[in-house]
């Protein structure tokens, strides 16, 4: 399958060692199947010595070669900081077609760790719908009856913000089981201070209950 190329439409800057090394109004984002999106920019908008040292190339199978032509891909890790206009972008380049919706839900959510029920939460749950990712359920931490501790794992999403990871004991081992966002990005501000269990590790079951509809 082919890559997709989208115009970014905003100013993009990258900073390395305190120095602006990319400053462009003409960036595109290249999204290849199974890979993280990547910025590609006109070489004229990149610091010369930085460019020689770090730039990659845009995949030649890009859908709209015209957009990608004459641009070089800059690996995310080559710069220390990236800015969309004056806002920092964390984690990796943003795909402009990747949407996140945080929705309040009245569904009851049950969470089991190693078969044991650790949370039964309703009333303040939020479901996160993210393009191409499974749904995630977020609950108040007070509804969780497990020995949660901060993990050493660090991650950041350009759509959600910087994640705090949590471990819990499963069969005697401490395992990463959940994430929370202390300062979620504005578009998902509802997630603040809620915690979400990884559906690959925990059993997370939303249960539809009544909503003025006479069901359940």
């Amino acid at each position, binding site marked *: 399958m082919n890559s997709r190329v989208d115009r970014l439409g905003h100013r993009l800057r990258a900073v390395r060692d305190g120095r602006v090394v990319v400053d462009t109004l003409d960036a595109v984002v290249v999204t290849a199947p199974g890979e993280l999106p990547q910025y590609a920019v006109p070489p004229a908008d990149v610091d010369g010595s930085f460019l020689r040292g770090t730039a990659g190339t845009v995949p030649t199978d890009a859908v709209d070669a015209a957009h990608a032509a004459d641009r070089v891909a800059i690996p995310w890790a080559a710069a220390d900081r990236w800015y969309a*206009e004056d806002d920092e972008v964390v984690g990796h380049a943003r795909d402009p077609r990747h949407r996140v919706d945080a929705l309040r839900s009245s569904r009851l959510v049950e969470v089991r760790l190693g078969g044991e029920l650790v949370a039964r939460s309703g009333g303040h749950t939020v479901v996160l719908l993210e393009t191409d990712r499974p749904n995630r359920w977020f609950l108040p931490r007070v509804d969780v009856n497990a020995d949660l501790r901060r993990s050493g794992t660090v991650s950041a999403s350009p759509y959600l913000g910087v994640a705090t990871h949590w471990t819990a004991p499963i069969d005697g081992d401490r395992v990463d089981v959940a994430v929370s966002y202390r300062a979620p990005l*504005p578009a998902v501000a509802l997630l603040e201070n809620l915690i979400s269990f990884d559906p690959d590790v925990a059993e997370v079951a939303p249960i539809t209950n009544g*909503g003025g509809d006479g069901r359940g």
Partner: protein
Amino acid sequence: MAEVDGPGIHRPTGHVVVEPARRRVRAIVDGIWVIDSDDAVTLYEQGSTPRWYVPRTDARTDLLVATELTTATTARGPAVWSDLHLPERVIERAAWQHPDPPAGAPSLDGLISFEWNLLDAWFEEDEEIIVHPRSPYTRVDVLRSSRHVHVELDGTVVADSRRPLILLEGGHNPARYYLPWSDITRGLLEPSESFTACPYKGVASYWNVRIGDAVFHDVVWEYREPLWQVARIAGHVCPFIEFTDVWVDGVALERPETKWAHHGPNAYTWRPGDAAWDPQRDVDWRGDDRHASR
């Protein structure tokens, strides 16, 4: 890049694409929940906003009465319409099905859809959604910017700001510049009665610009109570770059070729007296893109 408000190239392509909505979908009219489904699908059709279809078993089909009416669609096959019989009234042409989609189109067997505007309210999980379902492929970013945005009409300065918010929507609409009220020239803007609604941003009200005897209608808009996802744009107004002269960091913007550029700033707004206007509501979001065809 083609303007497609739906699945991109990483998914099956075609004029019509159907995907699970992955959220509980409900709709209410006259106090009756006529749709309540965990198994809704979102249908994307080129040139149209997304639509929800639900299994017939998740809709109050007991209130539906089939009609003789069948209308043609190219991509989804004939639409067969039903009236909705409520205790106090009948809503004609409230729902439709596609029993016979053309070859190559996804099957819509057992699914039914309702006219958005004829029902009172729609919900994703517990959140009300206005105008039409949001596409999971339409991202909206509001970015703080320090670029210099200068706006003129007929040679008169309307706004001059060094602290715009730049709103990007869907990867295909032009960047929009939201400017703080304090950076707008005083005395030029007059309130208009027009409004529009958007499932991503909320309900917009409009402003006319008066320069001498000339009035430029609806060339500035504002989301006074934006949806919380884009809360940053509160207190800001946005000039139609299609109808004003704008410089960004001293460079003149080319007026973009959008649907508004072709149809005028009023083409997609509503005013009192319009068919969709409902004085019973202080805010009325009824009516999607008026030029959308079914």
